[in-house]
């Protein structure tokens, strides 16, 4: 039991920090650069993203192991996973709008953005590829979501300061954000080898 818990913990740390999706796997960059301008949006995105991530990891796992493997249609996993994610995002958008307009007003924008985030499709694919168990899939999704949130928060806090800095004109905006990310990524390299799974 303890052994299992330890393994889950390792998986969580590995997904969130060591193999951070943004800094070492380079996924979700579009969203990362898009919403890391302000702290407030970064936090909103983190909450929405992590929630969607965990649920869609769970849904994909169930469909993969209980429908796709028995029917031997695993070669369709790209089509089916993107369908599940898109449908879930659309559904939660509609439900949230009806049930909790206040929350929708705050987080609805991020929901629409999530469908184009590659992490959301990468996590189910990795879960299927690595043959994670159900609990492992959930933990992996949670770790990935929070790791993405960590990256967003770090970046947003730097970029708020960067707004005031005197950057050479051709580098203003995107290019300097990329160079900054390079430096953070370098720092994250220090985590590699912390846990070897």
């Amino acid at each position: 039991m303890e052994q299992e818990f330890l393994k889950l913990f390792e998986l969580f740390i590995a997904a969130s920090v060591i193999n951070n999706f943004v800094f070492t796997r380079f996924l979700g960059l579009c969203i990362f650069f898009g919403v890391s301008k302000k702290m407030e949006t970064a936090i909103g995105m983190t909450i929405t993203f992590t929630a969607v991530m965990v649920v869609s990891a769970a849904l994909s796992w169930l469909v993969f192991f209980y429908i796709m493997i028995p029917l031997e249609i695993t070669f369709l996993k790209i089509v089916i996973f993107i369908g599940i994610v898109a449908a879930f995002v659309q559904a939660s958008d509609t439900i949230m709008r009806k049930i909790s307009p206040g929350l929708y007003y705050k987080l609805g924008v991020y929901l629409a953005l999530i469908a184009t985030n590659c992490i959301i499709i990468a996590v189910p694919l990795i879960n299927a590829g690595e043959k994670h168990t159900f609990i492992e899939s959930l933990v992996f999704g949670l770790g990935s979501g929070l790791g993405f949130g960590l990256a967003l928060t770090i970046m947003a806090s730097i970029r708020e300061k960067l707004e005031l800095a005197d950057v050479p004109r051709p580098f203003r905006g995107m290019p300097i954000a990329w160079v900054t990310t390079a430096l953070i990524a370098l720092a994250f390299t220090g985590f590699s080898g912390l846990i070897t799974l």
Partner: protein
Amino acid sequence: MSHQHQEKVSYWALLKNGVIKENTIFRLVISLCPAIAVTNSVRNGFLLGSAVLFVQAMVNSTVALLRNFIHPRIRIPIFMLIISGWVTVVDMLMAAYARAAYKEIGLYIQIIVAFASILARAEVFASKNKVGASFFDGLGSGLGFLVALVIISFFRELLGKGTLVGVTIVPVKPMLIMILPAGGFLVTGLLMGFFNWIDMRFYGGKGAGGAGGH
């Protein structure tokens, strides 16, 4: 392009637009993930670029072919379906014929399905134009992507490993940082700044890439 007649837009102009004016990576700053992930060697960059080129051209053609049958309200799911179908084709082809490379870039091939650039071209261009023009629009956009990936991977492989497509060029000790994840961000950022500088210096542009997107 709205003021022009459809026939007048030459295929050449469509290609040029995709490669230079609306270059996916450097000008529009979308679909960035693979720009960093697979560009630690020219071979990988080229392979992923070609995969995107193929998917983009085929998706555009398919969408253009079916544009009169797709109901506007459900067009996005239909586009996604078409895209994921073509991505599956490429994925299986790569897995069958380029096994060594597939082990490294397989995940990123599958991720093509979530590329904004492909959906954007289908939505903006292919759903309103004829098959021929759409095919060349996709070809141009994909080619721009391919060129960008090859440029980035050229610098990263040369500086990080001292080789090009596996052949040793610089015999001195290379800079390890360039093939690390951080190097990808660095090279892309610097190149983006460089192209902005060229644009400002010689073409009087205001510098692009400020918008950002997904």
